[in-house]
């Protein structure tokens, strides 16, 4: 199971919106086997390591970037999805990141 995480201020509104868009995209294309979760920035450092892809809407801080690098997590700019301006660029990056994952 591939796991994607999106983070925002309270893990409620913005991240949930992006999660919903990604889920819809997967559904439209019949892509399965991926879970997409939303969380808040305060929790993110504790749980990020167990995810495969981090879709961000606020630029990763030094701490977050460190976790991303150490744990081999793909980070994708989710702002295009969030703003609705050329979201395909983000979706392509997400798909590429998923394709690059190892199959167990």
């Amino acid at each position, binding site marked *: 199971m591939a796991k994607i995480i999106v983070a925002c201020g309270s893990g409620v509104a913005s991240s949930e919106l992006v999660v919903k868009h990604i889920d819809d995209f997967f559904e439209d294309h019949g892509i399965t086997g991926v879970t997409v979760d939303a969380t808040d920035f305060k929790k993110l450092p504790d749980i990020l390591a167990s995810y495969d892809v981090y879709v961000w809407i*606020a*630029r990763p*801080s*030094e701490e977050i970037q460190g976790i*991303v690098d150490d744990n081999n997590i*793909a980070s*994708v700019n989710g702002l295009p999805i969030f703003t609705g301006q050329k979201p395909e660029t983000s979706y392509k990056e997400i798909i590429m990141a998923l394709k690059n994952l190892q199959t167990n």
Partner: protein
Amino acid sequence: MEILKNVVNYILNLGGPVFVPLIMFIIATIAGLKLKKSVMAALTLGVAFSGMTLVVNYMMDSISPAAKAMSQAFHLSLNAIDAGWTGVAAITWSYKTAFLFFPLLLAINFIMLTFRWTKTLNVDMWNVWNKIFTYVVVLYITKNALYGFIVAGIQIVLELKAGDMFQRHIEDLTGMPGVTVPHFITLFAVVLMPLNKILDFIPIFNRPFDSAALQKKIGIFGDNTVMGAIIGVLLGFAAGYSVSKSLNLAIQAATAMTLFPMISKLFMQALSPIADSMSDFMKKHFNNREVYIGVDWPILAGRNELWVTVILLVPVMLIFAMILPGNTVLPFAGIINLSFVVAALLLTGANLLRMLVLGLITTPIFLYGATYFAPIITNLAKTTGTVKVQAGQQLSWSTFEGPDFRLFFAKAFNGDLWAIGASIVWLLVFVWLYIDQSKIALPSQRYAYPDGSTEAKSSTKVETKSTTTSADTTGLDLDDLDGMDFGGKSKSNKATKKETGLDDIDGMDFGNTNKR
């Protein structure tokens, strides 16, 4: 005629949790959503209302007795329980005219863009709720629905102008071009503006300050669950509870704090089909224009200063709640002061010391705002039928958004002379703020070290690129993806390996796609 009236009344009397999902279903159907999705959206909305009712009532039941006992012990009158923005937003969405504010926002933004009075295109349909809430406040005070719509309209215009003036600062702070935050909470900068100007005269406030290290240390206290537990146990002791009873209260408080955002997510899920079609509509009409896309504030949340400030202000909020004469609000679910910090971050250009001082000074404004507006929130909860509030108890929101704007403008439309004066002064300060923010140095260049450099010593900015480069994706056609399955995939990380393998029976095989 009589029959129609009866039908309308019957539907309205079904109560928010039934009536609003019904409206939701109708709108979603008109917007062309598939039946399955409209049904899901409507039901999810109903579930969100019921779920929020459950959590708010649970919170009231566990916290109110302790708050009462503590109030008696310390001779305080903290009878208003804090449901936070998530609770108040939930109650507001269940208001009967809530959905009228989508077209209001669209129409005003559409007109202002057409006549080039703004460059901000607001696609943040979630925060329509704070316009609805302004309407509710004004309606309660003036008893006139038209005034409610007018003040909500003024708010929408001011938000768009705030989006215009803060855009270049947001680009500087986040490194993201073309986006802005036309959010109501940025308007608190009007109150902060004069205070921040005074700080200009004190040298220490004109230096940069690194906050990354501090954030790592205090980050844990900002976690909802941890914070709920701490407040719960402190409240238990203050109420004179036994250790075992205090610990139980700690768990109950942590439960409420943890569940609030979980329930709130449901609202977002339910409302997103509407929000999407609204923002698509706007984007379609202004696609070939240079506009700033207005989104919710979390694009700023990568800044450490923001989190350090709100977490350090938590004890400040609690202490003020105890010592401020006349305060009735016990801070709880709304204790993280997002209503203050976004404006402070933008206005000060992420200067931590200034943000903390401004937070210290303005915390009483929020508590008194919460005290003043508690009857309105309580009344809203009762009329929408979402929450039971017992006699002698109130519901409120300790970090009430924009108490200044809402109080002044509601009272001004009620004909109070002092409020008309205050509203005019408020608007003048907004103009001053607008001019000032349009020409002031960008945050990264505003504060200098003694040697004259503005470069932060250990910069909090990190060069981040998406790890898959654009070259990787050029050969990828999004229409060719259909039927992919990533069920058996995960990164090569021992922490996740044990969780995989359950789903790799279905679908496609990516056996040859090992990481390079």
